[in-house]
């Protein structure tokens, strides 16, 4: 097998990987980006709607436009598309990849994992019934429509009101598919309010909160589903069941970080994503992480920022310029569903990204035993909360072994 030597290997050519590779190359590291697909962009490539880049470029771009900007910055890095990473060795930064030119072993000094996330399939919800054609995870439907120009069906129901579900409801409606509604098991929408307005309300697509699919019908092709209301703990109430005739079910019920090529890397138990420090360094010192493989992010701008930070840190590590630092573990306390990163380096500035478990009108985010706090208004699980801590604040946390982050309601 051919061996190829680099300083930094970046796995995945989505927003996170492109940003990481660009910044690693800017730091002077010999950088290689491998991407399985035939082109760069990751999920951006299929997101033809606007809504990207407001923070980073102060412009509203489409996904492919945003990807294009990141690609422009990539000049200093080598890019191999159509190349899949198979596995990384547990003990050292060596990886096996494959592509149309054969297997290549990459001997690197640092690795940035940026393989994104996959969508949870319907089966994971254990919904009973038949298994006909016509059931698609939202991203697959999005690729069929936006990349292949193919129509998945004629009458659809969307399960899950996260941003992806909402955007697909509108997309299908605009393509002439009759979208009968978006069902959401929780009593509040999973996506941004602006997406509820712009994707559903503007087109008269109903949003059914506290509802779920309890049975799938049809042989060959989907003929319909049974919907039911759920009680306060999310358990369907069978007496509320009703049949909805659809030939297409779009499933958008969450993203699962793609981390299977590095089974040895510690994961966050809540999200299954990689556990990393504020430097985006994992407990495996030569392994860095960026993007949706940490936890699913709402904004590509955040993903790109973290990618850059991971790339810079990896490049410094590769030239032995990243001095080892003690870390303090961050724990999820009450009210917190998702928290990135998992460790912080005392004395370094940090931004915490967290997702609250419940919507709250006014909440307090408390960090650590001494309770650095921030007051946040309009907390919604759909929107990540960013909490910046100054070097002085993180330094003060140095003595604690575990620092817990909490979100509590303020009245």
């Amino acid at each position, binding site marked *: *097998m051919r061996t190829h030597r680099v300083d930094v290997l970046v796995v995945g050519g989505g927003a996170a990987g492109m940003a990481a590779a660009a910044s690693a190359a800017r730091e002077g590291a010999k950088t290689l980006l491998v991407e*399985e697909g035939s082109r760069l962009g990751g999920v951006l490539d299929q997101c033809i709607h606007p809504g990207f880049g407001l923070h980073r470029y102060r412009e509203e771009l489409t996904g492919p436009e945003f990807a294009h900007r990141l690609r422009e910055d990539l000049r200093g890095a080598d890019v191999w598309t*159509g190349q*899949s990473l*198979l596995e990384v060795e547990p003990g050292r930064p060596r990886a*096996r990849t*494959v*592509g*149309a*030119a*054969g*297997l290549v072993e990459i001997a690197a000094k640092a690795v940035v994992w940026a393989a994104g996330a*996959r*969508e949870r*399939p*319907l*089966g*994971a919800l*254990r*919904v*009973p*019934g*038949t*298994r*006909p*054609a016509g059931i*698609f*995870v939202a*991203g*697959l439907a999005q*690729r*069929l*429509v936006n*990349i*292949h*120009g*193919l*129509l*998945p*069906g*004629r009458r659809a129901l969307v399960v899950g009101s996260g941003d992806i579900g909402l955007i697909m409801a509108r997309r299908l409606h605009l*393509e*002439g598919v009759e979208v009968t509604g978006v069902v959401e098991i929780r009593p509040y929408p999973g996506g941004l309010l602006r997406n509820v307005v712009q994707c559903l309300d503007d087109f008269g697509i109903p949003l059914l909160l506290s509802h779920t699919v*309890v*049975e*799938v019908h049809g*042989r*060959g*092709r989907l003929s319909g589903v049974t919907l039911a209301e759920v009680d306060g703990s999310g358990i369907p109430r069978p007496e509320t069941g009703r049949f909805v005739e659809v*030939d297409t079910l779009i499933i958008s019920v969450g993203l*699962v970080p*793609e981390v*299977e090529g590095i089974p040895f890397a510690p994961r966050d138990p809540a999200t*299954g994503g990689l556990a990393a420090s504020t430097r985006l360094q994992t407990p495996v010192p030569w392994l860095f992480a960026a993007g949706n493989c940490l936890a699913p992010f709402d904004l590509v701008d955040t993903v790109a920022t973290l990618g850059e930070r991971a790339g810079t840190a990896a490049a410094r590590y590769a030239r032995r310029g990243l001095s080892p630092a003690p870390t303090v573990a961050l724990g999820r306390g009450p009210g917190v569903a998702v928290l990135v990163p998992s460790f912080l380096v005392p004395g370094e500035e940090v931004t915490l990204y967290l997702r609250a478990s419940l919507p709250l009108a006014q909440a307090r985010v408390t960090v650590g035993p001494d309770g650095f706090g921030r007051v946040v208004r309009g907390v919604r699980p759909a929107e990540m909360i960013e909490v910046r801590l100054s070097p002085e604040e993180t330094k003060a946390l140095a003595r604690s072994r575990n620092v817990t982050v909490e979100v509590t309601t303020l009245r």
Partner: protein
Amino acid sequence: MARKHKTKANGVAGASIVVVGAGVVGSLVARELTRYEGEVRIVEREPDVGWGVTKANSAIVHAGFHERPGTCSARFCVEGNAVFADVCRDLEVPFGRTGAYVLALAEGERAVLEELRGRGEELGVPGLALLDGGEVRKRLPDVNPEVVAALWAPSVGITEPWALAVAAAENAVANGAILHVGEEVTGLTVHGGRVRAVRTDQATYDVDAVVNAAGLAADRIAALAGITVPGLTPRRGEYLLLVDVPPSLREAVLFPVPTAHSKGILVVPTVDGGLLLGPTAADLPPTQREATETTVEGLAFALNGARRLVPDLPVGKVVKVFAGLRPEPADGDFWLGETDIRGFYQAAGMRSPGLTAAPAIARWLAGEIAADLGLAPRPSFSPLRLALPRAADLPPAEWNALIARDPRYGRIVCRCNRVTEGEIAAAIGRGARTVDGVKFRTRAGFGRCQGGTCTDRILALLARETGRDPEEVPVQGPGSALVVGRVR
């Protein structure tokens, strides 16, 4: 067992035989028949091989100790188990001899283990051993700590049933058989107590013999021949499938002690790194031959039953739920061999352990038919079949050589199971015409994302390689198109 007619047909040179149904049983029977001179047709109504009962079951190669001595099930289960590894080797089908434990979770269940062991030994099941609770906990750290004893059965194995059906059908075709998929047997012509012809929705074939291997429709095929059979009850078995489970959970097949009705809810490793929990055993009305839907109650029952064996199952790794239907014969045993209608043979009533028994039944039945028709062995027969290359499982040098010959073997389409474009194209070359056909033959779309990442590419490959528009590519049978048209 078989009602045998002693008189033989007078050495029909180039006898014509139709096998009805290309499940694991029909495909293996057809393959065995190609050991002899004659023309063998396999007629299957589904668009591909192995989509009936063969598609949804526990995939266990049973040892035989669950079966009542003196039955066909017992005899052919033990014989089938003994030859299974060889058949899988010849046909390049996955097989793993994991062994199995039957777990006694209460003192009262010990006696059942004794009984199973006694039965197994009577049947000649090799290597059975009773283990005490401490030993079981040592071997299987994840099992229910209340386990008091277990029966260890080292000859139990696991396989990929549809892969075996596909492999056997391919081997049969390589040996001269003709495979008709998407063609339904609609009638049989019987004359003077002998079957003369098979009518399908597309043609009529004159025959010297017919093999009824029609799975859940076997009683209907028997009725077409004018014979009465004891009746089939569809007995539904529901499952949950987990992927990427830790190896400690995949050591061996785990059984509870059986009930009079079924072998109970099992925990079964799959050959590709997954874990099956199930099956339930619910008898349905005889008309419900396609009722492979899952139910709330069934899935809960399966999950709870599995948790009795292994309390801490990683339920977050469930990616799929499904159900299969057992063709449960009213008399409780397989229907095998020639019937009152001369030339009309059965390999039917294939309840569990029909998969295990299939290779042995096939060998025996083909021998019977050959003897009855006076068929000579065909010297050119080859039992060997090459599987599709599974590129990612090859040693690096071989994978590179494959890529050098055809670069498509370097392009991963299904990331979860590492299936390359080369494999998908090869599967299409061997007859896959549908998304599920590709999936069952290559495992593309069978992994942790369940096809969410690769189905569009598989669709594009199917359309391109078979010269169809994407709208014309079905997922399963007719009327199951994946996409319905173009965007405006």
